[in-house]
């Protein structure tokens, strides 16, 4: 059955490997995926451990539903202490890796230590081997995977790899699988690199036994109808995730030229429709691909149409690349967005962090905080397409003073640049904001400020807040599975009711991340997509575990609290500008200048923002300083952590 998948503890220093079952008590308490990873991280690392040292635990997992008959359960999650933030590190990606790992017998790997020389881990139907990676060290993301195929003489092997950025310990290096499935944010690729671990490769043919297979298939049909029937998924299946950027830029919610503006005007060439035209021209009409078990197919395949990288194949770009190599750096060229996307995919580097670091350096350059001498003569003005592509490469290989400084991540870089450069750094907890500008949307501002891995739209963003849904619709969503009769507002420039929405979404996203389901299959971008009420049946039919929607909600709350406990243990405090639940002062001081009429002049009112944080803490069961109350920990069964159940 799905639940007989195990945890492997692998020590790269000693070569010791230990395999253990996952007790049912642990499953019911944390489910799997990101939630159980958080528990494992809290239990298998010590306070203050060096993120790039052998004592950091690198945890790789699939959700509890991974490789079952449930839809879109391809997600792979990776967690460790982050070298970018010094707090919780976490990334989540689609593709085909986690199901292969489940078929090979495992749902979780806990990797500690450091190999003496480059290595990779090969898992084949329950057997784990640490192999020499001397011949693949230095290779790009895709070349690494093809080299492993050749070495093992098996093209069905799925690998989770790092590129040169991970080897060079770029603080925001990714873990990657396939061409563009990126475990981005928080530098999990650097943690792999620090362990001399180039890849984890899996091949599995061990059946995952489904508890009620026919009923599970039948119920999944209903699920598929619900998912493919959603307008948002029909749009994604046509334009991919770039449609999100297009819509956001249209009303003025895209941060532009670092944070000077909130809209990139005349951006027609990087709009999703234009990118779709390029994909059609270069790959034909059927260029949309999907992950394991997904019907949405949001991943475009394309070739770069012109310029230095003409003809190079890649996938995506995700909406984040339009932000990173478009608006943030003031560029309006599809070629730059597609080439930038290709470079970070091949180097294994986070597109959001890379684009943000370059955008920050550009503003510092234009403000005279970075000199032309420090850029080795590169004109780092906004809109310089060539400079953007050059800087991506320089960061990956830590070339020149600035390339090396930017590779360290925002806060260390601002200390190197000095003066008031920190003021220009658009970050939370040391992680750069994504491409969106939340000055007109208080709920989204609260989301990024309080996310467990730093500024992050995938932890608690109530994106449906932007749809102006009637209050009765909002209430239908946000008062299930636990009752809520407090205020809710359809107006997304308002502050009322938003803390509850953020709290609800935080639990919703933790639930899907622990189940192993893609966020595009839940209440993220579409109000009509499955959530707590739908999951118990999927869970039961596939795994036999009986849980109510309320119980899944409680698991999600517990898992989120473990992440908070980790951050508190590592020094996070509410008002710390580097590690706290706070926004850059520009959110409060600089009003929006562009976009739709009613976005103009908007900014986040500090007092109201602080009141939202207070209320959000109350919903979570935290005190005014963001520390969990004893009663909350008891209620969630976390009063004795670390409890070392596994």
């Amino acid at each position: 059955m799905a639940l007989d998948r195990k945890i492997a503890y692998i020590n790269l220093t000693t070569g010791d490997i230990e395999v253990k079952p996952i007790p049912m008590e642990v499953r019911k308490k944390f489910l799997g995926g990101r939630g159980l990873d958080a528990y494992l991280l809290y239990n298998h690392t010590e306070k203050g451990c060096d993120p790039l040292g052998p004592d950091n635990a690198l945890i790789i997992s699939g959700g509890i539903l991974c490789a079952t008959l449930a839809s879109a359960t391809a997600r792979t999650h990776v967690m460790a202490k982050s070298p970018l933030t010094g707090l919780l590190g976490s990334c989540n990606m689609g593709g085909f890796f986690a199901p292969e790992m489940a078929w090979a017998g495992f749902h979780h790997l806990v990797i500690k230590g450091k190999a003496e020389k480059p290595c990779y881990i090969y898992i084949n139907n329950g057997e784990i081997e640490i192999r020499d990676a001397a011949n693949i060290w230095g290779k790009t993301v895709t070349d690494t995977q093809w080299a492993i195929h050749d070495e093992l003489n098996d093209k069905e092997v799925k690998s989770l790899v790092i590129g040169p950025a991970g080897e060079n310990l770029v603080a925001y290096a990714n873990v990657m699988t396939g061409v563009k499935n990126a475990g981005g944010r928080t530098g999990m690729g650097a943690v792999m690199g620090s362990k001399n671990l180039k890849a984890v490769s899996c091949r599995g043919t061990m059946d995952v036994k489904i508890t009620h297979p026919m009923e599970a298939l039948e119920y999944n049909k209903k699920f598929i109808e619900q998912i493919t029937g959603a307008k948002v998924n029909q749009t994604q299946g046509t334009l991919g995730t770039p449609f999100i950027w297009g819509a956001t830029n249209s009303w003025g919610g895209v941060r532009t030229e670092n944070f000077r503006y909130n809209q990139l005007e005349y951006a027609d060439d990087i709009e999703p429709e234009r990118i779709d035209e390029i994909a059609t021209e270069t790959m034909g009409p059927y260029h949309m691909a999907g992950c394991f078990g997904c019907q949405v197919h949001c991943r475009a395949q394309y070739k770069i149409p012109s310029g230095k990288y003409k003809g190079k194949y890649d996938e995506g770009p995700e909406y984040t690349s339009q932000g990173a190599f478009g608006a943030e750096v003031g560029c309006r060229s599809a070629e730059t967005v597609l080439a930038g996307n290709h470079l970070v995919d091949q180097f294994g580097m986070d597109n959001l962090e890379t684009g943000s670091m370059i955008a920050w350096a550009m503003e510092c350059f234009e403000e005279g905080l970075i000199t032309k001498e420090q850029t080795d003569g590169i004109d780092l003005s906004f809109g310089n397409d060539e400079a953007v592509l050059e800087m991506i490469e320089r960061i990956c290989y830590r070339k020149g003073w600035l390339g090396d400084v930017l590779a360290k991540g925002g806060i260390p870089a601002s200390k190197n640049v000095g003066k008031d450069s920190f003021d220009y750094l658009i970050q939370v907890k040391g992680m750069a904001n994504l491409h969106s500008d939340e000055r007109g949307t208080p709920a989204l501002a609260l989301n990024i400020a309080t996310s467990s891995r730093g500024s992050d739209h995938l932890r608690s963003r109530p994106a449906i807040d932007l749809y102006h849904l009637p209050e009765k619709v909002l209430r239908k969503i946000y008062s299930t599975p636990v009752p809520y009769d407090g205020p809710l507002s359809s107006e997304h420039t308002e502050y009322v009711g938003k803390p509850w929405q953020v709290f609800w979404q935080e639990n919703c996203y933790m639930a899907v991340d622990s189940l192993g389901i893609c966020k595009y299959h839940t209440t993220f971008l579409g109000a009509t997509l499955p959530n707590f009420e739908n999951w118990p049946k999927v869970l039961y039919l596939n795994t036999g575990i009986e849980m109510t929607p309320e119980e899944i909600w409680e698991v999600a709350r517990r898992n989120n609290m473990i992440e908070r406990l980790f951050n508190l243990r590592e020094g996070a405090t509410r008002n710390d500008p580097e590690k706290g639940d706070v926004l850059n002062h520009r959110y409060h001081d600089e009003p929006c200048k562009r976009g739709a009429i009613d976005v103009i002049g908007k900014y986040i009112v500090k007092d109201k923002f602080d009141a939202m944080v207070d209320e959000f803490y109350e919903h979570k069961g935290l005190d005014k300083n963001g520390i969990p109350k004893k009663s909350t920990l008891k209620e969630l069964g976390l009063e004795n952590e670390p409890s070392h159940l596994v």
Partner: protein
Amino acid sequence: MAREENQLTGAESLQKTRTFGKVRCHNPSCMERIVPEQGADHAKCATCGMEFRIFWINPKLPRIRGPVWDVNRKIAQDRFKEVTEAKLKAAEKKGGK
């Protein structure tokens, strides 16, 4: 199980209320529904005056591609001027700069 067979979940029941052939104005406090003519590539919000370029995902599903830049840019610039002047006046009243 928590829910009886044939009883709809919240998400399923909301699915039945969806509308097709319309888009919402991108102006946050307007958000009026705009019904573009079938196949049209432009539409104007009758309520707030913003103009948008339209793309059709399928014949029933239009989406806003983006603003008509020149039109909406002018609206935005006028509005920003208004907001800035109002802020200055308010500051003057309080005796500040």
